[in-house]
């Protein structure tokens, strides 16, 4: 890493900033605290010096009075042995040193301007009395020597002095001399210095610790997530939109990561859509090309065959065959056109037709393939079915696909396909598909991610057993399946809209079957749907649909004796690109079939047993039935 990179790092900037602030704070604090400490020590030293000075004065008082110089000197010298005492001296009024712990200065005259005399002798007339605080002085002999605290103690004239026999001191004299005690501040200075040193050590340790802590937390809370985000951005930048940032917690960066994930997911969806539309566009161009290329030869086939058809009215056998050619060429024409329509997303062309005719036409197309595979086809088509409105080409495609799938499932060993049609009266229970459900505040509750039976489920938020989670309801009216992975406590249950948290439970209602709480959802323009929240109960009530009563449906069943579909795959087979055929299939078949049936407001169900067979059941509404359920 280059120096510039290191300097530009957030952690270093923070460390520098916090370090600077710490230095300032600690310096200011140390300065004042050391100063206070120094002052305190100094005043203690002053008091000590003062006491000492008084002690000396008092202890020498008698010997002075008696004029016992030897004794006075002895006392002074003895006290001067005390560690920290630099010098004790007494000078007389003229400034001559009479006594001193340092013998060589005795007899010397002290300059009145010297620091010991300065306090009294600054004024024109020397002061007789000196206040306590002005008696002390601190000075240094030279810059390298320790500081010295000097205290002067004037020796005042007393009655005992001038009344004494020696009559040395006249009565008028106020001050007889000065006792000067000098204390070396070496230890005190050393103490202050060590305090300073401790402060510096403390500051350094504090800064180091703070830097370490900042470093660690910045790394943990900022650098790591930011690096992860940078990495994710780079990944997305290079086109990997599937990159997901793992959970970074719930702080601001965690939220950023979440919203980043959300963004990439949206981007990826948009890209898929873009890709899809791009694919559609190129497919459209391809379709246009194919349409043009294919339509010319088809024109040849269709014109000649229809021409021949007209001319062979008398030859029945030939005429029948030609009818097949004309009809199938017309079908090809519709397929090519639907290719174009598909590219242009055109509407399905619905007509009133008999479903049996559509099935018959589908059978003709696959009959040959079935007989090659030794598959027997049993038809059980109910006559006189009412005509239904449907796109016969699309529906024919559905049957062809289902028949081919059935034949593939049987394989080469041979088997049977049953195809039957029937007219049923069904209650809306188990047939009507809830395509949209909302909370009272009109928030969409449909969940496209969790599908039940290939259809988007209804997602509700649940609080129970002091846990929070989601419950997914089957969108097929009457089934009331719950998809939830923990047990609900029905007595302590809140069910709310995942978006606005509004309660969806009907407070004053209980399930008539099992007395459990009841939810209520809105189906736009079709009233409310209610259902039991117990997993075991499948009670549901939808007044708007129930009011229509039973309706007629055409049921088409296609069952085979093939290999069957494993249970775990049953829910997936209607998803796009699910295929068991590997390279052979495109995987679009069943999802397209589902889409076509759904477009016709019908339903398709699948039941299967491994190695026994599969049954597809399609229900299509009859024309008088409910047309739209959107």
């Amino acid at each position, binding site marked *: 890493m280059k120096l510039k990179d290191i300097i530009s790092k957030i952690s270093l900037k923070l460390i520098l900033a916090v370090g600077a602030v710490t230095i300032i704070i600690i310096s200011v604090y140390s300065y004042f605290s050391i100063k206070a400490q120094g002052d305190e020590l100094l005043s203690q030293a002053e008091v000590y010096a003062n006491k000492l000075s008084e002690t000396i004065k008092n202890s020498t008082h008698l010997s002075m009075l008696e004029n016992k110089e030897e004794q006075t000197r002895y006392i002074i010298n003895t006290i001067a042995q005390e560690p920290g005492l630099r010098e004790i001296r007494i000078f007389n009024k003229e400034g001559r040193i009479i006594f001193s712990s340092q013998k060589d200065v005795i007899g010397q005259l002290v300059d009145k301007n010297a620091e010991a005399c300065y306090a009294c002798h600054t004024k024109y007339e020397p002061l007789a009395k000196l206040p306590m605080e002005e008696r002390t002085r601190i000075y240094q002999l030279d810059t390298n020597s320790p500081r010295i605290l000097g205290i002067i103690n004037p020796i005042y004239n007393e009655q005992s002095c001038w009344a004494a026999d020696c009559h040395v001191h006249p009565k008028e004299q106020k001050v007889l001399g000065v006792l000067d005690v000098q204390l070396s501040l070496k230890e005190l200075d050393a103490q202050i210095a060590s305090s300073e040193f401790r402060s510096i050590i403390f500051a350094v340790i504090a800064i180091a610790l703070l830097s370490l802590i900042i470093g660690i937390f910045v790394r943990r809370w900022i650098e790591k997530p930011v690096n992860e985000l940078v990495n994710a951005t780079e990944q997305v930048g290079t086109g990997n939109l599937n990159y997901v940032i793992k959970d970074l917690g719930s702080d601001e960066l965690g939220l950023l990561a979440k919203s980043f994930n959300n963004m990439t997911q949206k981007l990826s969806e948009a890209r898929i859509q873009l890709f899809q539309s791009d694919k559609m566009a190129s497919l459209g161009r391809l379709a246009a090309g194919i*349409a*043009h290329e294919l*339509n010319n030869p088809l024109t*040849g086939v269709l014109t000649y065959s229809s*021409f021949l058809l007209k001319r062979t009215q008398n030859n029945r056998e030939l005429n029948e065959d030609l009818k097949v050619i004309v009809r199938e060429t017309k079908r090809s024409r519709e397929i090519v056109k639907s290719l174009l329509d598909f590219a242009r997303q055109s509407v399905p062309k619905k007509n009133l037709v008999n479903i049996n005719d559509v099935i018959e036409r589908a059978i003709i197309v696959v009959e040959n393939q079935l007989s090659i595979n030794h598959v027997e086809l049993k038809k059980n088509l109910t006559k006189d079915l009412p005509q239904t409105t449907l796109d016969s080409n699309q529906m024919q495609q559905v049957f062809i696909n289902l028949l081919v799938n059935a034949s593939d499932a049987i394989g080469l060993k041979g088997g049977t396909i049953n195809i039957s049609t029937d007219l049923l009266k069904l209650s809306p229970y188990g047939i009507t598909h809830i395509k949209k459900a909302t909370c009272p505040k009109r928030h969409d509750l449909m969940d496209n991610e969790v599908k039940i039976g290939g259809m988007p489920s209804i997602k509700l938020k649940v609080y129970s057993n002091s846990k929070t989670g989601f419950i997914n309801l089957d969108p097929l009216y009457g089934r009331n399946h719950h998809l939830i992975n923990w047990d609900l406590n029905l007595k302590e249950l809140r069910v709310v809209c995942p978006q606005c948290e509004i309660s969806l439970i009907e407070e004053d209602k209980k399930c008539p079957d099992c007395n459990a709480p009841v939810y209520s959802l809105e189906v736009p323009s079709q009233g409310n749907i209610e259902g039991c929240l117990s997993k075991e109960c499948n009670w549901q009530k939808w007044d708007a649909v129930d009011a229509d009563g039973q309706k007629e449906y055409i049921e088409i069943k296609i069952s085979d004796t093939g290999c069957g579909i494993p249970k775990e795959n049953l829910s997936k087979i209607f998803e796009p690109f699910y295929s068991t055929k590997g390279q052979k299939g495109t995987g679009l078949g069943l999802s397209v079939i589902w889409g076509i049936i759904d477009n016709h407001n019908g339903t398709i169900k699948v039941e299967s047993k491994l190695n026994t067979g599969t049954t597809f059941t399609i229900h299509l509404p009859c024309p008088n039935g409910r047309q739209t359920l959107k």
Partner: protein
Amino acid sequence: MKKDWDILVVDDEQVVIDAVVKICSSEGYTIDSAIDAKEALQKFAKNNYKLIVCDIMMPGIDGFGFLNELSERKISSPVIMTTGYSTVENAVKSLYTGAIDFIPKPFTADELFNSILRGMKYIRIQNSLKSYKRDDSEIIYVPCPAKYYRLGYSSWAAEENTGSILIGSTDLFIKTIENISDLELFQNDEEVVQGNACAYIKDKEERVHPLLSPVSGRIIEVNEDIIKNKSLIEKDPYFEGWFYRLIPSDSEYELKNLINCSSDRL
């Protein structure tokens, strides 16, 4: 001396030419062919053709270019357009640029032949129009009313105040069919697409004539009166004889591609 032919087929696909030639000649028409627009135009120097069947997608000059060349050379022979690329745009543009009909490929012998029959009838009507005198008692055909829009000469669309659109067949189209015997109509709620068939009109000889829809939309009302009384279409094609009432899907755009009938008034 120029030779007179009934039909000229212009297509770059030999099999289509062969098929058209076969169908037309079996019905007694004299028919000539050209492999592209350039050759077709050269043929006009030597011959006269009553009717032209022309492909749109051709190398060199395409079908629309060919239509322009014809009008520049003051050749008034009506043109029936065909194409394998049968999109709404192609159909509508063909009829807007002056073709009298549009048949998407692949077509059956009948679909082609019925279109040619209507074309021939159209020529006869146009010819009789030339010899028409003001004092003639019989009106040849009633033109489309002002403020109506028409798709070629076949169907019309009229905007209603409520935003819906009425569509029907022009008098000229009905006149080229003659003797309606049956009608096959779409139903309520069904979608019709501009330039695609929206109704099938059967004549006495059981020939089926598709009526191309002038606009796209969802049918909200079918005129029950014309089912009960088919002659209503012939008697009052522009008012009582309407076919459907539609909720248009994009009338603003689609009406631009139609011919404004106000300009028909001379």
